[in-house]
């Protein structure tokens, strides 16, 4: 996602709903990111259960990535409104570009809650996890 959000023109009705949060790649900031996630999801008419799913999903994705983040770098989270939900991409710079293991309990929880989940590696061994949560798809437990 390299496209920059254009400054809305006076009277423009369309604002691209994208928010990027950048913070130190340190687990001490997990709670801040959970709060930001809940705040953004609440803007999009997600139900309380869906907001909680996103909060846990982002937390799990970040905790996974932080274990391999290069010290002193940032964790970048991009939230983007899609037609029917929200896409969240979390990424960190790593030493070896290793994808998160999918046979862990954390991945099971993540994929159970976050809807579509995928992981990938970009330039500079930047590893990302992308969640795409759609509204109205949550089964009540």
């Amino acid at each position: 996602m390299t496209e920059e959000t254009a400054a809305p023109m006076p009277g423009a009705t369309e604002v691209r709903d994208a928010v990027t949060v950048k913070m130190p790649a340190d687990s001490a900031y997990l709670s801040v990111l959970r709060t930001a996630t809940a705040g953004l999801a609440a803007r999009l008419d997600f139900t309380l259960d869906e907001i909680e799913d996103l909060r846990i999903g982002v937390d799990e994705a970040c905790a996974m990535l932080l274990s391999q983040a290069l010290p002193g770098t940032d964790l970048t989270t991009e939230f983007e409104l899609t037609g029917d939900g929200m896409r969240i991409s979390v990424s960190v710079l790593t030493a070896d570009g290793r994808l998160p293991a999918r046979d862990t309990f954390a991945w099971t929880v993540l994929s159970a809650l976050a809807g579509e989940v995928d992981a990938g590696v970009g330039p500079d061994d930047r590893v990302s996890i992308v969640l795409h949560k759609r509204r109205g798809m949550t089964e009540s437990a």
Partner: protein
Amino acid sequence: MSADISIRTEGDVVVVTPAGDLDAVTSPGLAAVLEPILGAEDPCRGVVIDFSKVGFCDSRCIGVLVSSYRHARDRGIGLAVSAPQRTVHRLFAIAGIDQVITIEDDTQDAMETVLA
């Protein structure tokens, strides 16, 4: 940052009450409190983890609960979780740990369950 965790003993039962969020940062603190209780030379008969003050938990917290459950079982100690908030209880159900660990709505009930 660590979760604020209080411990009280009532008869043969130890009640552990964490407060706040239990995530990758704070869950090890819960493990550090539970380990010496479950590993004591002359252990208690039951442990209740009162979740009423926990607003968030994730897979790391569930991992601590499951390993504590196994430790307790191996030592013949009853272990239960009590009073989780709705969102936390929902995660327990999605993760399936309510099939493994006893979860009671009421802490007093849980204290009786672990001694049964």
